[in-house]
């Protein structure tokens, strides 16, 4: 019954019932502000209870305050019912076969113009309708694994995803694309980097910073870049493929363990930290930046290591952090803690006793740096050496989120802290590099003449 009044509550709901009208009714409304005609639209759950929303014949939506409405007359009823046009994805002999896994982010979508709802396009046919260029690159099949927002992706999903990838590889797929919301894409990328080892084919993660329902979205081009990478590149690693510059220009292929989302909204938000990306990609070409990656092979071998211990935490140290922050984790039975420390990897003295208690309780504690760039160096100051004596293990130049994921993955395999340490400090997928290249740290400062010159010359 209430479905007739989608989202309406309180006074407005009473009003709708009083005049015997419902959502999708075509109505004439008399109010103290004047007369209005249109179609009653559903109300968003989070909006107030005192307004009624209608769509005018011009396509605009407006709201009317319930208290001003004197009369409503229903003239008709038009329920919106939308379906995505589907065109069969063409199969071409000789083109690489790709699998696209969906996790819940919308890669392509169509709009429901009446409600504004975004209806995701996902089947190959739907995607072909939205991004026909894909058919020039590959033969595509798709599988929707979950329908969750990026922030709700977690260990359970990592494991399902890793196993599904393993199955596809053993079935002889030529490349894998994973559509993912961007907020936690780098977490999932590093989880898959550890869980899927020795892959013979590219595993490319992709998303969009501007939703695909807008003409200027980066979704289609990102998907084209990802498909090209998965289809023709020999980069048989877990990577993230997103815009290089904010312009519609080229994509960057980032290593799954070194990539991080660095801006809340820019198209070019994804950056390789402390290193350089693997390659650049345009519609039909992948250009290598480096050569030290796992190469594509013809076999179907892959190691799937789908383990994860969920009782681990990542804490961001701040001045005056109190020891009870650590104690509460110990008390609650956490098995591992990654600290993002200041500078070279520090926390304040008052925390030391808590760190000792963690050591005694058998909690694995790893240090990373909140500067993101650079190595943890705990030998430089006495304080660092003090902490190491209390069991804190420096994790080289692993990014904090990557160390968190890796620690969960390591503790998922063993409780033996020595073995965990061994796993943690042995580079598996580029998460620890032996050296930092001179061009691994580049945050250009705007305003400097030579930087401004560069900005003017190249599309940002």
């Amino acid at each position, binding site marked *: 019954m209430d479905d007739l009044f989608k989202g309406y509550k309180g006074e407005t709901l009473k009003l709708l019932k009083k005049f015997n009208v419902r959502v999708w009714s075509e109505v004439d409304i008399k109010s103290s*502000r*004047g007369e209005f005609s249109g179609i009653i639209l559903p109300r968003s759950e989070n909006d107030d209870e005192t307004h009624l929303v209608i769509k005018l014949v011009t396509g605009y939506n407006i709201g*009317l305050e319930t208290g001003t409405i004197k009369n409503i007359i229903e003239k008709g009823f038009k329920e919106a019912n939308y379906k995505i*046009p589907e065109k069969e994805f063409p199969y071409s002999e000789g083109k690489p076969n790709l699998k696209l896994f969906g996790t819940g982010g919308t890669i392509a979508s169509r709009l429901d*113009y009446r409600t504004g709802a975004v209806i995701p396009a996902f089947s190959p046919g739907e995607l072909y309708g939205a991004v026909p260029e894909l058919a020039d690159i590959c033969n595509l099949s798709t599988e929707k694994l979950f329908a969750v927002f990026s922030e709700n992706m977690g260990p359970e999903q990592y494991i399902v995803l890793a196993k599904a990838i393993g199955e596809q590889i053993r079935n002889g797929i030529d490349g894998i694309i994973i559509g993912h919301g961007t907020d936690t894409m780098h977490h999932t990328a590093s989880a898959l980097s550890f869980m899927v080892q020795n892959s013979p084919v590219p595993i490319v993660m992709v998303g969009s*910073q501007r939703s695909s329902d807008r003409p200027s*979205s980066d979704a289609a081009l990102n998907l084209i870049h990802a498909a090209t990478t998965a289809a023709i590149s020999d980069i048989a690693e877990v990577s993230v493929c997103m815009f290089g510059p904010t312009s519609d220009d080229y994509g960057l292929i980032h290593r799954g363990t070194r990539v991080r989302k660095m801006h809340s*909204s820019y198209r070019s938000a994804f950056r390789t930290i402390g290193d350089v990306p693997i390659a650049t990609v345009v519609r039909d070409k992948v250009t290598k930046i480096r050569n030290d990656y796992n190469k594509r092979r013809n076999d179907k071998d892959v190691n799937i290591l789908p383990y994860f211990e969920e009782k681990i935490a990542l804490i961001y140290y701040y001045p005056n952090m109190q020891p009870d922050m650590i104690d509460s984790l110990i008390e609650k039975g956490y098995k591992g803690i990654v600290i993002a420390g200041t500078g070279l990897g520090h926390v304040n003295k008052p925390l030391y006793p808590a760190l000792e208690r963690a050591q005694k309780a058998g909690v694995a504690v790893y240090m990373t740096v909140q500067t993101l760039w650079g190595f943890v160096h705990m030998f430089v100051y006495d304080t660092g050496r003090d902490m190491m004596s209390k069991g804190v293990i420096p994790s080289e130049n692993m990014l904090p989120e990557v160390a968190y994921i890796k620690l969960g993955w390591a503790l998922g395999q063993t409780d033996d802290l020595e073995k965990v340490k061994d796993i943690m400090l042995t580079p598996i997928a580029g998460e620890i590099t032996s050296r930092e290249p001179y061009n691994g740290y580049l945050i250009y400062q705007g305003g400097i003449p030579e930087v401004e010159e560069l900005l003017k010359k190249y599309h*940002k």
Partner: protein
Amino acid sequence: MYKRINGKKNTGITKKKIGFVTLKEATPDIYEDLGFKCGLEVHQQLLTEQKLFCRCPAGKYQKGDDFQAEIVRHMRPTLSELGEYDGTALMEFKTRKNITYRLKNENACTYEIDDTPPFPLNREALGISIEIALLLKTSIVGELHITRKQYLDGSIPTGFQRTAIVGIEGLIPIRNKKIRIIQMSIEEDSCREISDIGHERIYSTDRLGVPLIETVTYPDMKTPAEAAEAGQYIRFLARSTGKVRTGIGAGREDVNVSIKGGTRVEIKGVSRIKWIPPLTHVEAFRQKALLEIKKILEERTKNVPEWEIRSTPVDNSILIKAGLPLKKEYKASGIRLPGFRAILSFFTQPEKTFADELSERVKVIACIEKPNIVHDEDSSSKIPDEVFSDIYTKTGGDEKDAFLVVFGPAGDIAMAEETIRERCLLAFQGVPNETRKAVNREGTTIFERVLPGPNRMYPDTDSAPIAIDDGYISKLGSDLPSDIYDREKIMKNWNIPEDTFPYIHVRNIFPVIKKISEELSYSPSFVGTIVGHRIKNVDGKNAISPGFDHSRLFDIFEFCEKKKLDSELVKLMIPVLLIHPNMDPESILSTIKFKKRDKKEIISNIPLLDKQFNTISKKNDPGAKKRWIMGQLRPIAVGNISLRELSNTINGGGNG
């Protein structure tokens, strides 16, 4: 046998056939016969500190080549459009325009380039828009819903404009009738186009996001003059708040025109009201011509669905020899248009024929710069007949067919052929749905874009609705300026000359005149005439300093009254004020070399001057004498004694 026709003659014949007359010659009956209908979308920038959805300053502009960074985007139709858009829009996408946006830190941030979601809507702008919505007598909405309106031309980097309805269903009076208002909305202004050549279109983001209102009228205007009058009224009404931007581009009109049997065609971006009459007039006759062409084509073509163009490659070198600006690597394609003989030279607008309809679309859609076609009905072309007779033979021509050659970069020729085919097919339907833009003051327009599909509005998921309660409206409503219509009635009563009204409205000087006449002892007709004639004259020569504000006029009048200076002095002081808006009245006085003198002192000169005149002039002409004495005394008299009093005194022999 192939035979060329005299295109120039045909253009003349067809011009007569559709009954084209000039705007000056046209009587109201002509528009009634045409079934002329016109509606306006009047855009007006609001005078706010900041832009509508970000905190960038509004109203700061720079030259097109002054920028700090550029970004490139491509607009892609979203999925639903693929189902609903007509072929041309999709083609436009396929031709891939590279859209470059030029940025300057001073007036653009990451919001403008769609790398940051919108900030909450500018409340200052909302307040002004509600005031104007009230003046338009519209019903104000209870809740503002920000909506996205899609644009694929790149004029907005997001691909859509954020816009919201403020009020609907209003009414404005013009001389002989009332014009209904469909709606008034508040929206963000779009980018300024810097250039559009081939596949590269460049925009500046300086104007993007400036708060703008759009007032949409019903198609109630039945003559070009009515359309201009309605446009003028809406403009004056916005100006009367004193809270809107002025200057070129701050107010722009989109003009919708249709005639009986025609289609609504939108002429975009008309920045001067006086261009509305010629534009609508010419468009009405263009539609008439297209309907006439439709009639002819229908008679000639039995089976329209099977109508098809035929094409054959044409050797470049012949065209180059004939003086066409072809590059060697260009391709040329000869096309036969079955049943189109004498259509390509059919008159459509002054200096334009149907062939221009094809050429303009080839420029916009296939991105080939003009000239891009030559045809066999173009009397001025130097293309030898062999070129066309060759196409005639190779494509199996008929004497009822037309022949043309389209040329340009090889990669764009297929699209050009498709564009020509599509436009010719549309000719069977009459007037295509499209937007056009003005090219000259005579009212000629060119094709701009295909009109977007109807379903291009959808809610902005980035912004929450904004409630507009009764208290807020009544607060804004309590301080509204009087109606333009009422103002004119008052000014008539004041005996202000009517020819000054437009200037007084456009600069919103009514409140100052009212204040001066209410608080000081000057008559409104004196003040109104000074403003509407003298100041307008200086304004027309662009000689007013940008810092000048009409409220300063009050200071001058007040000063003269307090100092008991004669009102004639005001006329000398104001020109100085217009150039030096910050100068105080005392300094202005010394600038015009005014000295305070006693009346008696001035009058005491009369007897002496009287004698002097007698020695200069032998004739006994009292009139001439008086004029001469007045002339001698004027410089010291103005401001100290009224000229009438002085004149009377001279008559009385200086004893007054």
